[in-house]
């Protein structure tokens, strides 16, 4: 009895060889992760100190006592020039912009790609390439005419003005076009014989088939929209439309004159601003990879 219990582990135990290649890989990965993680970590530690300390001593590497207070103030204290905007409102604005931007882009580009791929349009290819060349004209290049158009339409300081001018997406149209081209033609024909019109085919077949693709584009576009800075700065002067990305700068600015800049608050807000994109990427990660790599449908 005693013999068997002693022998069994002995038989399975093997001398573990250290595989230096694996160790090397991990060292590189750990160093890389640290390098990427360090700035947010320092932001977090610094955000836990009060404004005076930060102003006097610069970035902090240890945790201080004011973490909770800074976050609370960053999120709930009415700030800004008009004192009627807090972090929560800006967070909500950022979500409206990010989600509106992503959803709008997906809807518009899916429908554009659907038209280009599935309908016998005159000059469909030409239309596609014209859409594609708009990639060469990013917002920054056409910002004056865009602003003028929105201003004339009276859409400054509205969510519509914030979102709609940005949702035409050549990138999205291109991705969806490539995806639709990879969907077997027989599927559309089978649906036609099954009595599905163009609209039903789109909703019942194409949209569900594209869901990984939609998720992938949603992530890219949400993060892109969330990080928009220039356009919101131009189009919204009313502080109640401020997004987080703008708000961070605003905190630092408004407090500059007589007081010490509230760096703690700004850093806390920066961390808040980082969380949703990170969360979305983590949440959609699997779909994201699938959407960009899976082509056999």
């Amino acid at each position, binding site marked *: 009895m005693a013999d068997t219990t002693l022998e069994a582990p002995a038989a399975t135990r093997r001398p573990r060889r250290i595989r230096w290649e694996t160790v090397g890989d991990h060292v590189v990965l750990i160093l890389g992760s640290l390098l990427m993680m360090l700035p947010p970590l320092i932001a977090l530690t610094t955000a836990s100190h009060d404004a005076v300390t930060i102003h006097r001593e610069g970035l902090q590497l240890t945790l201080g006592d004011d973490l909770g207070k800074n976050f609370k103030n960053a999120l709930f204290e009415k700030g800004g020039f008009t004192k009627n905007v807090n972090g929560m409102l800006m967070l909500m604005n950022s979500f409206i912009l990010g989600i509106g931007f992503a959803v709008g882009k997906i809807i518009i580009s899916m429908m554009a790609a659907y038209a280009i791929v599935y309908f016998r349009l005159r000059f469909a290819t030409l239309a596609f390439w014209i859409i594609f060349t708009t990639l060469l004209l990013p917002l920054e290049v056409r910002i004056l005419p865009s602003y003028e158009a929105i201003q004339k339409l009276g859409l400054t300081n509205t969510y519509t003005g914030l979102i709609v001018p940005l949702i035409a997406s050549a990138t999205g149209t291109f991705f969806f076009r490539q995806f639709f081209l990879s969907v*077997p033609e*027989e*599927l559309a*024909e*089978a*649906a*036609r*014989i*099954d*009595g*599905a019109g163009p609209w*039903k085919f789109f909703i*019942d*077949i194409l949209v*569900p*088939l594209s869901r990984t693709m939609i998720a992938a584009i949603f992530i890219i576009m949400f993060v892109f929209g969330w990080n928009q800075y220039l356009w919101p700065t131009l189009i919204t002067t009313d502080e109640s439309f401020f997004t987080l990305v703008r708000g961070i700068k605003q905190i630092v600015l408004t407090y500059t004159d007589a007081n010490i800049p509230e760096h703690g608050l700004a850093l806390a807000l920066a961390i808040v601003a980082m969380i949703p994109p990170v969360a979305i990427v983590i949440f959609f990660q699997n779909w994201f990879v699938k959407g960009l790599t899976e082509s056999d*449908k």
Partner: protein
Amino acid sequence: MAQVSLEGIRKVYPNGFQAVESTSFTIQDGEFVVLVGPSGCGKSTLLRMIAGLEDISDGTLKIGDRVVNDVDPADRDIAMVFQNYALYPHMTVRKNIGYGLKNRGTPATEISAKVEDAAKMLNLTEYLDRKPAQLSGGQRQRVAMGRAVVRDPALFLFDEPLSNLDAKLRNQMRIEIKALQRRLGTTAVYVTHDQVEAMTMADRIIVLNEGRIEQIGTPYEVYHNPASTFVASFMGAPPMNLIEAEVAEQQVRINGYDGLMPAPAAYVGPVTLGVRPEDVELNNQGSVTFRVDILEELGAHRLLHGTIAEQPFSVLVGKDEDVQTGETRVTLKPDALRLFDAETGKTL
């Protein structure tokens, strides 16, 4: 259930390419017609025109008594089975089969009853809640069949439905499809490039070549009385032997051999002589010398490849025949010989 008639149907593509020349034929109610031909012969185009997936350039297409040239595929009362099955990958088998009914506004209870029936008929009941990706090739094929059957259409269209299956499964599905069509009595048009499928499944075969109908007939007619050298060489494996011959003094003559068969009276000149490999007998007293080069072992048969009068020729013999390579004497069965015009390839 319906009769289908094509009157002068043509397909010309915008670039001027004529995929299907003016074609007329009628498919009887309940008939199983197979369109067969090599790739690019226009058989799929013809089928897709019947389905309404391809515009008809010219001519009139009738399903039942109705001219359907400009009728949408959904309203032609047809169902189609595709080569790649074209199942909706995100839907369960149940939804795949029921989708066509749902789009036509059939009440949910009726759909589920019909889907259950179709599934039972095709042995799919236990797979109803799976997605296509979880099924084998044969099962997917059955789901595609189910999608066609459940709507109880007037006409089934099959576009090379078995070409993605392995050989064994193909034989099995061939029988199943045929049996199902018999049971339902639905008119069917079946496209294939596989002459075995055509021979085994069809009530009538339509042989197409380069957008033209070469022959319409029962499998027996097409095999035994091919209308042209094309049909003779396309239908049947091994194909019919075609050798150059000559008609003179009302006798058919291969270089060196006279009097193989009496020729049609008024004809003189070169012809192509056709004979099936199994219609040749090894016979010591035979009038023709056959030089055997290669012996091909087929199990039940042996196929001998060689030459007659310097022209390639093959002979199919039973597995028990003792054959060596080298020269041997053969007889060509006189009533199995077919003559074709040497120029046009048409039967004389």
